[in-house]
């Protein structure tokens, strides 16, 4: 399976985010709840994706994008106008944020200094942390959603699923559901599954794109590592060229206890399947 299909408006690819919204996502990481940190990372990623697909004449539909949340309930997790919708073309995401906030960021002033710049920060996804962790149900929901997508887009670059969780499924071992999800494939390759694990285990140190399970702290991390797909060669080259991560051929789409910077880094690598043409 080559993972080299061209991604274009005629042959879009797909990103599906599976977001743990269980009560334990209320725990703090870097001074914010995990739920808030994940929501910021997803909103920022969606913004970057939209901007990447924007051209002078509008947004090109290179991707269909969906967010499935799981916690007290499992299902599509967009806020605002997109609430209840599964996969949405990226132009639909661009034109329907729930709201646009103003935030400040430091930017290069072109002369070696930094200046504050007010930027628009669109919000599509709000933090939620409530209930159990029905991971198997969420993976099954992803399977159903992507089965339909693949039927319609069987020769396209396969979907990338990015799953963010604190790791302890409450509806059974998710291994089978992950394997079933990864068994879906287009003619260009099987679905790529990333597992980003925000562990509660005090012995869990940061591990980025591990190629072996040797230093994983517990069974929860091991299950998520086992379930993650190997990175494609292009993703590894993005990791090396843009994030200075020297990864082996066996590196998997698995991050343990990354801070928000490494979560954002992983999202960037995971959403760069190949060059847009």
């Amino acid at each position, binding site marked *: 399976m080559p993972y080299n299909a061209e991604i*274009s408006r005629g042959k879009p690819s797909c990103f599906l985010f599976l977001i743990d919204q269980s009560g334990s996502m209320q725990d703090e990481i870097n001074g914010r709840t995990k739920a808030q940190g994940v929501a910021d990372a997803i909103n920022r990623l969606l913004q970057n994706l939209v901007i990447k697909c*924007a*051209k*002078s004449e509008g947004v090109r539909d290179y991707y269909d994008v969906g967010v499935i949340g799981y916690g007290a309930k499992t299902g599509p997790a967009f806020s605002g106008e997109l609430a209840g919708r599964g996969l949405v073309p990226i132009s639909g995401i*661009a034109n329907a944020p729930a709201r646009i906030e103003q935030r400040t960021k430091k930017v*290069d002033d*072109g002369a070696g200094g930094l200046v504050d710049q007010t930027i628009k920060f669109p919000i599509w996804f709000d933090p939620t942390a409530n209930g159990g962790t029905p991971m198997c149900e969420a993976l099954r929901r992803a399977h159903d959603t992507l089965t339909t997508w693949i039927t319609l887009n069987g020769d396209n670059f396969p979907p990338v699923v990015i799953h963010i969780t604190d790791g302890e499924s409450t509806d059974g071992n998710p291994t089978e559901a992950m394997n079933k999800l990864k068994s879906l494939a287009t003619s260009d390759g099987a679905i790529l599954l990333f597992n980003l694990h925000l562990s509660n285990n005090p012995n869990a140190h940061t591990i980025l794109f591990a190629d072996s399970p040797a230093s994983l702290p517990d069974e929860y991390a091991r299950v998520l590592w086992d379930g993650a797909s190997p990175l494609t060669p292009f993703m590894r080259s993005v990791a090396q060229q843009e994030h200075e991560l020297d990864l082996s051929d066996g590196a998997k789409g698995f991050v343990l206890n990354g801070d928000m910077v490494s979560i954002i880094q992983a999202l960037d690598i995971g959403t760069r399947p190949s*060059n847009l043409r």
Partner: protein
Amino acid sequence: MRVTTQMFWLPKAGNSVAEYEDAFWPNEAADTLPLNGFCCAIADGATETSFSGAWANLLTRQWCSENGDLAQFLAALPTLQVQWGSEIDSVAMPWYAEEKARAGAFSSLLGLRLFDVIPDNDWPARWEAVAVGDSCLFQIRNDIAVAFPLSRAADFNNSPYLLSTVSQNGEDASEHLMIVGGKCYPGDVFYLMTDALACWFLRRHEEGKEIIESLFDLDGHEKFQRVVEGQRAGKDAEGQPYLRNDDVTLYRVEIHE
């Protein structure tokens, strides 16, 4: 001595002509122009930025209006950046287009200029080329005499340094300019190509294909389109197209007595 010029171009398959983001200048073929002082340029606006075709256009025209004088061209860059900003400011944009435009546009540039030299010299003319990025020049005399700035298909990657509409950490664009020059004779042909076409040309040449002959045979847009579409459709042993689907530009300059 005189030159004849021809130019061939196509947008990437699936895109409209309006979405072509390469640029070239002068944009009209010429039968016989004086060689001395001849100047031309091509540029490749980066796909991942917006309004990059407009930026590529500004760069090629400026290069030629400065007659390929590098110092004057570099001095004019800040004014060109402002001009690009004014052009896009006149367009009403949604939030994402504003953010995208704020990040600026990027483009390669490849410029060529030709000069007569003093009479009775054993070589009648010389050429100079300047490149930023991965658009390439080939000087053909039977075979490839010069390939610049890249000379192997394996040298192409996806992140060359490009000229930008925004200053980057006070970076000096001149540090990324590559300059080369040499002699030229009647019968020599220069090809200027944007990256996808240049990479294909080098690769097919490395494979021993009679690729130079196929370019000599080009006599019009229809034939160029047939070659490009055929090479985009053809697949190598790894299933990759011979010619990557991208905007393509070919600028041909032939030297005559």
